[in-house]
């Protein structure tokens, strides 16, 4: 029997191709981290000592990034599996309305709230948190079922559900911020810190990120997510219930929106209709900047962390340098272009095979 490895005709060529592909992967992972480090270094030099480069600013940047990071974790899974969710901003707003309304209604009467008295606070918070998560999850399931059953491209399907969800939230609230969120929820949770050190939103974002990382990298669920985005038909033939898996991913995304909504209500004591309008694209941008392929099958949470931090770092740096935030959009756009270009190079290296 011939040893196939000894055939010289093709092995070197294939090897070179493989090295190119792997090289591109490592390049993008490393370049994006280097870029972030470069930004931090530049801002540290360009801003007065103790302003940008300080522990408290580090905390502020993480706090600003925490919500985008949570949404980006869910988006990483979706993009890897070949899905997409543009409705996450709207679902977050809707969930926030539910959280604020439920909490305000159950905590006590309007008269009691006017005097900042909340006799049923514990019940109200529990119900509101549960309700926010459940409603987010529910919209996620709807998105998933639409994506799986109707075959409407998710770009369109979630764009539509996003409009519907935001519309319903606006109709429900007359477009106004929801009032009477119990103050202790804001002071205890939204402004509160774990052990008096780490703000709760950062703690939650860290837990979500860690769980996402493990789920994606270590488990069967994660592997199947990659397989679906790489070749949906292959995943189906391998016996993976791709429909169920996809619905689960969208449902998880929705639940994460609910989580962000809870943080939002905690921080600002209100549910604001006009917030989160750019979250869907911002999350996709962060995830793609982090090296996840728009074409599915490839991506990592580590990259997503970097991608989600970049806008917050730019914002903090630019404000402290007193540069207008429009430059932040310019910078994120440029980084996004570079990231997608590298992604394309990778795909080309692969399909040459």
């Amino acid at each position, binding site marked *: 029997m011939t040893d196939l490895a000894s055939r010289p005709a093709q092995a070197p060529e294939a090897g070179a191709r493989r090295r190119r592909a792997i090289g591109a992967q490592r390049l993008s992972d490393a370049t994006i981290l280097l870029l972030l480090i470069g930004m931090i270094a530049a801002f540290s030099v360009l801003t007065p000592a103790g302003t940008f480069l300080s522990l*408290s600013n580090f905390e502020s*940047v993480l706090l600003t990034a925490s919500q985008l990071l949570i949404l980006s974790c869910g988006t990483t899974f979706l993009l890897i599996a070949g899905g997409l969710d543009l409705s996450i901003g709207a679902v977050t707003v809707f969930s926030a309305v539910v959280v604020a309304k439920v909490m305000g209604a159950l905590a006590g009467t309007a008269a009691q709230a006017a005097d900042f008295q909340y006799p049923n606070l514990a019940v109200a918070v529990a119900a509101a948190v549960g309700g926010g998560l459940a409603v987010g999850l529910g919209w996620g399931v709807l998105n998933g079922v639409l994506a799986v059953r109707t075959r409407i491209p998710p770009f369109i399907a979630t*764009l539509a559900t*996003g409009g*519907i969800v935001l*519309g319903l939230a*606006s109709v429900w609230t007359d477009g106004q*911020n929801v009032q009477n969120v119990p103050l202790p929820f804001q002071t205890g949770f939204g402004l509160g810190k774990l052990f008096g050190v780490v703000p709760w939103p950062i703690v939650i974002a860290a837990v979500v990120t860690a769980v996402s990382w493990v789920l994606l990298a270590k488990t069967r669920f994660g592997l199947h997510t990659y397989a679906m985005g790489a070749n949906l038909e292959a995943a189906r033939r391998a016996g993976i219930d791709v429909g169920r898996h996809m619905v689960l991913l969208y449902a998880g995304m929705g639940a994460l929106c609910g989580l962000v909504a809870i943080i939002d209500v905690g*921080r600002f004591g209100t549910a604001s209709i006009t917030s989160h309008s750019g979250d869907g694209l911002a999350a996709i941008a962060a995830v793609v900047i982090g090296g996840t392929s728009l074409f599915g099958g490839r991506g990592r949470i580590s990259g997503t962390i970097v991608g989600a931090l970049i806008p917050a770092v730019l914002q903090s740096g630019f404000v402290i340098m007193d540069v207008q935030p429009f430059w932040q959009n310019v910078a994120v756009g440029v980084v996004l272009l570079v990231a997608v270009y590298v992604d394309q190079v990778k795909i080309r290296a692969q399909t040459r095979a």
Partner: protein
Amino acid sequence: MKRIIHTLAACVLAAGLAGCGSGSTQDAASSGSGTLRGKKIAMLLNDQFDPYYLTLVEGAQAEAKKLGIEFSWQAPATLDVASQTQLLQSIAARKPDGIIMSALDAKAMIAPMKQVMAQGIPIVTVDADVADPSARLATIASDGEAGGRLAATTMSELLDGKGKVAFIGYTPGVASTDARLAGWKAGLKEAPGLTPVAERYDGADLTTIAGTVTAVLKRTPDLNGIFANWGNPTLAAAQAVQAAGKSEQVKIVGFDASPDQVSLLKRGLVSALIIQKPGEMGATAVADLAAYIKDGTKPKDTTVDAVVATQSNMDDPEVAKYFYKGKQ
């Protein structure tokens, strides 16, 4: 990017809810004046969500009901000149007896408005006017510049005339933002003890605005005051200042008086609110148009002033009546 998703979402919203923000009152049969019976006034709004505009509608609606005029209002799905022009044309096509609108762009809206006026439909602008007075019959302005000036005076009083202050706005180029900024700057000139250290624009997202305010506090740790140009920056600035533990040091002067802003004032997290009187503007606009329709009385330009609400005067009914309407 935000803009795109906002526009797209709004388009879908518009398609989904068919015409989005609109409403009408048809009380023409009630006791009103004979010559005004069956007359129609249409109002073109910039935003169907903002309590400010909703209060404006309420004032106009109440006045129309009193006069027996049929009143309807609409808001475009997106805040751009093209969609406002389109909406204006479609409203004009229904031949109302008068139109009340707030111009999105002081220059770009001149031509489409003149076109409508040429069709014999009078236009009165409220809140935001155009640069050419011949493009409308009259303007009922809430003097944004005076409001900004009032904010500076109020800030100066709060800080005993001395300190570092920041401005947080929606986005440059929007007439109301620019007017308030101009008034704020003019007011600061008269209060030489106040040093402006930052001028930021951050759209509508609470998280983003809070991040910016936090960074402003990093840049200027000894900041004394923030003028938050509208509702969301007021909320976000209060949160960021509180999170930074600087509620004592940094006084916040907000603009507008939505219920959650009033709640912040009550809790002392915001020191003062500059309140416009959108209800009065709406009522005046309808009354002016009605008079013109009835006997051709050409209305005069009117400026509606603003009031300052602080913790000490907020329970005074004369102040509290200007708090914007919030639905629960």
